[in-house]
C-alpha cells in the first residue's frame, strides 16, 4: 500500500475530530440539557439526513465563508454534506409540514462546511438549534432570543458572562435601496460595517449622494450600545430613517427587544444596528451570542421570511443555532 495513504489515514481529515470518553460524555450532557429546555418550550425534534441535494444549501453560506462539501453520486447528481440545519428544516417545513402553523422544531448534530484555512474554526461543527415557522410577529423574534438566552442558562453559563447582540438586516437593506447603491457597493458596505471598519465605510459612503441614507449608513459602524441606551440609539436611527421599510425594520426590532428584555434571564442584550452579518437568507432581525471564554460567537440566529418560499410554501420563520464546539468547554450543565 502507498506510504502517504498509510500516513494520511491515521488522523481524521483536517478540521474534524474524534470525541472520546469524557469529551463525548460532556457533549451528550450539554445536548441533554438543551433538549430539556427546547422541549419544555414546546419544540419537537427533527432529524434531517446527513446528505442533501446541494441546491438546498445554495443560500446558506455565511459572509466570506466557503460553502458545503459536495460530492457527485452514482447517477451524476450533485449532493452536499449537511452544511446548514436551517435550510433542511425549511425544506421539511415547506413540504411535509406545509401549511401547519406554527411549527416549533429543534435539531442537533453536526454540519460540515469548508472553513477558511488556519482560522481555528473546525470543518465539522457540532450544533443544536431551534426554528419557529409560521409566526411573523416581533413576539416570535423575542421568543427565539429569549430561548437562546435560556439555552445558555441551561448550559450553566452565568448571565453576567453572556451577551446577545441584536440587529436587523432589514434596516441595512432598506438603507441600501434608498441610497441606490449598486450590488458591488452594497457588498463592500456590508463588509466594512461587519468589520466596524469606519475608515473604509467613510470612503465607500463618499460614493453615495449626500442625504439621510448615507448618514444612516455611516452610523452603522458605531460601537454597540447596551440595552439602557437602546432607546436613544433607535430613536436616532428613526430620525435618520429615509424610507418606510427602514422605519418598519427599526420598529420591529424595538418591539422584539422590549419583549425579549423581560425574558432574557439576565443575559445582557445589546443593540447593534451594524450586526449585519449572518447567513445569506436572513431578512429581518439577526442576533449573535457571545460568552466569556470563547473568542468567537457561540451561536446566532435571525429571521428568514423568504427561505421557505424557495421550497414552495412561503411562510415567515425565525430561528437560532448554538455552536457546541465553542460552548461545551465553557458549559457546566446541571
Amino acid at each position, binding site marked *: 500500500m502507498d506510504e502517504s495513504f498509510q500516513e494520511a489515514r491515521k488522523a481524521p481529515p483536517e478540521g474534524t475530530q474524534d470525541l472520546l470518553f469524557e469529551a463525548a460524555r460532556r457533549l451528550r450532557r450539554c445536548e441533554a440539557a438543551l433538549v430539556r429546555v427546547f422541549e419544555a418550550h414546546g419544540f419537537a425534534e427533527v432529524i434531517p439526513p446527513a446528505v442533501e441535494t446541494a441546491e438546498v444549501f445554495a443560500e446558506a453560506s455565511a459572509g466570506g465563508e466557503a460553502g458545503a462539501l459536495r460530492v457527485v453520486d452514482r447517477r451524476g447528481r450533485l449532493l452536499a454534506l449537511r452544511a446548514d440545519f436551517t435550510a433542511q428544516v425549511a425544506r421539511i417545513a415547506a413540504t411535509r409540514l406545509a401549511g401547519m402553523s406554527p411549527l416549533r422544531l429543534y435539531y442537533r448534530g453536526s454540519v460540515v462546511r469548508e472553513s477558511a484555512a488556519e*482560522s481555528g474554526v473546525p470543518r465539522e461543527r457540532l450544533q443544536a438549534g431551534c426554528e419557529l415557522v409560521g409566526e411573523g410577529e416581533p413576539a416570535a423574534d423575542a421568543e427565539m432570543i429569549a430561548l437562546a438566552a435560556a439555552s445558555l442558562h441551561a448550559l450553566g453559563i452565568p448571565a453576567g458572562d453572556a*451577551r446577545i447582540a441584536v440587529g436587523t438586516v432589514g434596516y441595512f437593506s432598506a438603507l441600501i435601496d434608498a441610497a441606490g447603491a449598486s450590488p458591488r457597493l452594497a457588498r463592500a458596505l456590508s463588509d466594512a460595517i461587519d468589520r*466596524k*471598519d469606519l475608515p473604509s465605510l467613510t470612503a465607500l459612503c463618499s460614493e453615495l449622494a449626500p442625504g439621510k441614507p448615507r448618514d444612516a449608513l455611516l452610523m452603522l459602524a458605531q460601537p454597540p450600545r447596551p440595552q439602557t441606551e437602546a432607546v436613544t440609539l433607535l430613536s436616532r436611527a428613526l430620525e435618520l430613517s429615509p424610507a418606510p421599510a427602514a422605519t418598519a425594520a427599526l420598529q420591529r426590532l424595538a418591539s422584539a427587544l422590549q419583549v425579549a428584555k423581560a425574558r432574557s434571564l439576565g443575559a445582557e442584550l445589546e443593540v447593534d444596528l451594524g450586526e449585519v452579518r449572518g447567513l445569506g437568507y436572513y431578512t429581518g432581525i439577526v442576533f449573535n451570542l*457571545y460568552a466569556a471564554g470563547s*473568542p*468567537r460567537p457561540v451561536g446566532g440566529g435571525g429571521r428568514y421570511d423568504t427561505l421557505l418560499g424557495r421550497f414552495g410554501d412561503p411562510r415567515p420563520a425565525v430561528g437560532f443555532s448554538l455552536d457546541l464546539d465553542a460552548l461545551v468547554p465553557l458549559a457546566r450543565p446541571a
Partner: protein
Amino acid sequence: MITVALPKGRTLGATLDRFARAGLAPEEDFAQTRRLIVPARGGAASFVLLKDPDVPLYVERGAADVGVCGLDHVLESGADLLIPLDLGFGACRLSLAAPQGSPLVQGWKNGEGGAELGRSLRVATKYPRLSARAFARRGVPVDVVRLSGSVELAAVAGLADAIVDLVETGRTLEQNGLVVVDDLLQVSARLVVNRASYRLKLEELLPVLERLGGAP
C-alpha cells in the same frame, strides 16, 4: 483586563507612543526585559510583543483582545477581525513591480498582465493571498512564489517575472532596476479587535478606542 498585541517591526515606536498617549504604557521596556508578557502601568492591561504577521492570529483566537498591525498583514492573514481604527502611521503601499523594460509594465496598463509571455506570470511575494487575489480580479493566471525575504532579488535574479511587495519610498526598487507597475493596496497601521472581546469587554475597550482614535 485587556491584552494588547504589539508589533515588533518598524511601527513599534509609533504604536507605543500612541498607546502611551491613550494612557496605556508597559511598565518595563521590552528592549530591556526578558519577560514575554509585560503588564501596563496601573495594571489595567498587559502587553505581548509579536512578529507583525502574527498579530492578527493572536487577536482572532482571543489570546489578545486588541492589536496593532499593518492592513497588509490583516488582509493577508484572512483573520476574522474588527478593524475600527486607522492609526495613520506606517503608511506605505503594497505594489506590483517588475524590471524596467518588462512587457508587463505596458501590458498591465492595457489589462493584459503577462499574456505576451505565452505562459503564466511568475510573481514572488511575501503576500501570496493578496497577490493571488489581485491577479484573480483581472482574470490573469499567475504562479505565486512565496518568499520570506529579499523579494526584489527574485525579480533581479530571474526567479520571477514580477514581485508584489511593500514600497515606502521606492528607492530599493529603483536601485535594483525595478519599477512599480501598479499599487494594489494603501497600507497603514490598523487597530484590530477580537469580535467577542468587542462585546464582552466593551466597557474596558471603548475608552481605549476613543483615546486611540483621538487626533494625534
